[in-house]
């Protein structure tokens, strides 16, 4: 579906999978190791509460599409999550084998095996994971602003129930961070787009458009029964130091996007690179640069290593790949000779001398992203908190406007794909429930006869009320 975007060779093609696909024999052997715990800790550690022991035993029995169905009932983006989730701190990290001092079950690799197999079967026209309900007179139309994981999950769950979701994406390619922001050694663009194609095949429509420019918020509220804001985050934050503006200083997410999507992009003659920040995006960029052959890659972080928000297991891998860490260093000035970046002057906390010059050919800023306050504010009743995040009810993901829902990074300030998938799913379920409740109030007797059970796995909850998270 997106073959054009994948035609040229891009830098990410040089970075192979860190965790390659299991062969059937490997998957079976690993699946058979699972103890099949009851009340399993791995399920509780998953933000989408996938029934992990059940799907693993299905792999062991050879029911691989069934395994994918178990996964995708809870997390329709189970494929990308299998590849990008920090399983070390979620499901795998909670496996009882850890306490037993044995190798935990490789749940992420097993989930990838099942979902990749199932998506391939879908493409080939084989056994389907789900059969979406056909749209009917009662189908609702939902506009989803942004084409990232939260919107994709929401759209998929709506489409499965026979509703008509329309995604509005401002970028040339849909998929959000899965397409443009995930480290290539975890997930390549082609694989992210394959999952988007799957969601669209369920009955979601993709349109290119920018809310507030090519399409107005009023229009969306007028023409659709509900709106889901899956806005993500905005531009990479800047340091605000002298010398920052100009070539050679890159935003982290902008860099990753080019690496993954732009065939014309190259690193040029960068030999020494500095990555500013201590989060997971900073570690990703540093690892990508090191893997692409940049000789000297250093992360510059204002506090000590223990205070970094990036995952320890990721930082350990970065160190193995040769990434250095400069701790307690605050950037003061980007140094240039003419246009060319030559280094970064940093202030060192508690050190003598108090300042140091770190030589560099390029600097990458991974110190956060701005919030897309303006778009959210176009919808009446939608509130933002102090950080600029959209305020939603924790259970329903409904904003202050009863017809507007939100999920993903725009409500949490930047978490994992799996959190976005949970947001999108729960918003969809609550929309469907709210429509049914509304109908119930108008035609109680008719509905009593035809009221269907809630979608599988959906908890029966009372109609949500907007409240602060």
């Amino acid at each position, binding site marked *: 579906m997106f073959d054009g975007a994948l035609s040229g060779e891009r830098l990410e093609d040089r970075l192979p999978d860190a965790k390659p696909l299991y062969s059937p024999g490997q998957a*079976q*052997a690993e699946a*058979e190791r699972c*103890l*099949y*715990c*009851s*009340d399993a*800790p791995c399920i509780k550690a998953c933000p989408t509460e996938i029934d992990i022991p059940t799907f693993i035993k299905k792999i*062991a029995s050879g029911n691989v599409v069934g395994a994918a169905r178990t996964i995708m009932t809870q997390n329709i983006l189970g494929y990308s999550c299998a590849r990008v989730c920090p399983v070390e701190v979620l499901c795998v990290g909670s496996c*009882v*084998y850890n*306490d*037993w001092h044995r190798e935990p079950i490789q749940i992420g690799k097993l989930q990838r095996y099942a979902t990749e197999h199932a998506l391939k079967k879908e493409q080939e026209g084989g056994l389907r994971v789900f059969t979406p309900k056909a749209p009917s007179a009662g189908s609702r139309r939902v506009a989803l602003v942004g084409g990232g994981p939260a919107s994709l999950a929401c759209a998929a769950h709506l489409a499965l129930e026979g509703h008509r979701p329309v995604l509005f994406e401002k970028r040339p390619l849909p998929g959000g961070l899965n397409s443009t922001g995930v480290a290539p050694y975890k997930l390549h663009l082609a694989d992210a787009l394959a999952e988007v194609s799957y969601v669209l095949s369920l009955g979601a429509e993709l349109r290119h458009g920018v809310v507030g420019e090519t399409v107005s918020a009023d229009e969306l509220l007028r023409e659709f029964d509900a709106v889901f804001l899956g806005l993500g985050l905005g531009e990479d934050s800047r340091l605000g130091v002298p010398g920052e503006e100009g070539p050679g200083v890159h935003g982290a997410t902008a860099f990753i996007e080019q690496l993954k999507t732009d065939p014309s992009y190259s690193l040029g003659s960068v030999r020494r690179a500095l990555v500013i920040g201590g989060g997971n995006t900073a570690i990703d960029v540093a690892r990508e640069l090191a893997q692409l052959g940049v000789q000297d890659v250093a992360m510059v972080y204002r506090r000590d290593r223990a205070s970094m928000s990036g995952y320890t297991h990721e930082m350990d891998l970065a160190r193995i790949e040769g990434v250095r860490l400069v701790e307690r260093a605050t950037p003061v000035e980007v140094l240039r000779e003419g246009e060319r970046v030559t280094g970064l002057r940093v202030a060192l906390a508690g050190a003598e001398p108090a300042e140091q010059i770190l030589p560099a050919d390029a600097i990458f800023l991974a110190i956060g992203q701005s919030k897309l306050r303006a778009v959210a504010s176009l919808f009446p009743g939608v509130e933002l908190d102090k950080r600029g995040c959209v305020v939603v009810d924790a259970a329903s993901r409904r904003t202050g406007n009863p017809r507007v829902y939100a999920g993903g990074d725009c409500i949490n300030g930047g978490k994992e794909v799996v959190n976005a998938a949970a947001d999108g799913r729960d918003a969809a379920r609550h929309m469907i429930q709210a429509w049914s409740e509304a109908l119930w109030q108008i035609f109680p007797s008719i509905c009593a006869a035809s009221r269907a059970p809630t979608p599988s796995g959906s908890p029966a909850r009372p109609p949500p009320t907007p409240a602060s998270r």
Partner: protein
Amino acid sequence: MRAFDAGWGGAVWKTLGNPIVNVSSRFGAVDYNGQKMMGFNNIELITDRPLEVNLREIAEVKKRYPRHAVIVSLMVESRQEWKDIIRRSEDTGADGLELNFGCPHGMCERGMGSAVGQEPAVLKEITSWAKEFARTPVLVKLTPNVGDILDPGLAAVEGGADGLSLINTIKSIVSVDLDRMVPLPRVGQFSSNGGYCGPAVKPIALHMLAALARDPRAGRLPISGIGGISNWRDAAEFIALGSTSVQVCTAVMHYGYRIVEDMIEGLSNYLDSRGMKSVNELRGQAVGNYREWGELDLNYKLVARIDPKKCIGCQLCVTACHDGAHQCIFTGRLPKDRPPHAHAHGQAQPPTPFPVGELAGERVPWVDDPECVGCNLCALVCPVEGCIEMVQVPNDKGFESWHDRVAKGTDKVPGGLHD
């Protein structure tokens, strides 16, 4: 000869008879949770090589390995054939004969193998022919495809057999090819039943062995134990239940003759650790403790104990107990409702102090002792060695079996048809 070099003390030769024609393929297997060939099945017949070749090789082996036992397995039809083949087999210098009355596929369709083993009268008659012609000891190899192993076993005794060997393979279809809709192993587009063996059949073999060993007539004879023996522990179990020797085939087909090294060493170490000087001291030690159900102590009581130090919190015992046993293992600090059929009154009470595990914290389950029937299921499903122990609950009731109750007239249990 490679087997003897590896350390095996004897061999039973592939069954001789009038050569047959075999099919391709011949073997099938059951794998379970990553273990290959937990069960094994074959549709191969007796030797397909000329009698002359087999006899020449047997003679050669006996010449080179005079101190090793070579038993010739035989399967023919008529009295004259038995006479001829016994004479020619013994002329090789072989140490004994094993009459194959067990093969449950192919040969039985021609009136041999298990067709004989399933007809005690026929088995007895052919055994007596063999005894009439033989100078060396005659073992009768029994088929397990019978209702009661004592029937053919005692027929063999009456026919004059010098020893018994069991079990031959169990009539089986090992699996089905769900794409081609053909059972396995497949011969073109068809298949046939085969004989099942390997580790999966050991429990069946042990039971049949024990049934013969504790019978006063059959138990006097040497018994060669066969069926799923893969290591010294299996061998020791067969010997403890009455075997005087053991035979191994599937495990050698899987791993080779080399497995005998550990079998010898492991068995020797075990005998040393028990202060036994010979396997003869081990022979039959467990036979007397195999009783009728009605002779078991109804007042012996066990309950499960979960060790919070070792528990990893998988809670497989909880699910197993609730879905497959007596609903008496719980989690959490609150009292729990007992199932409607419970014998004890009120709610199940968590122990005090509440067990907090070293590894699993509050995920460690607890046992509602009054409801635990001591079934073992939790201990069997627990993946952690030594975590769940079955401990005896002493009582002052003394030994009382069902037979005792019947004798005393106290065997009526309320709640039956006659209340």
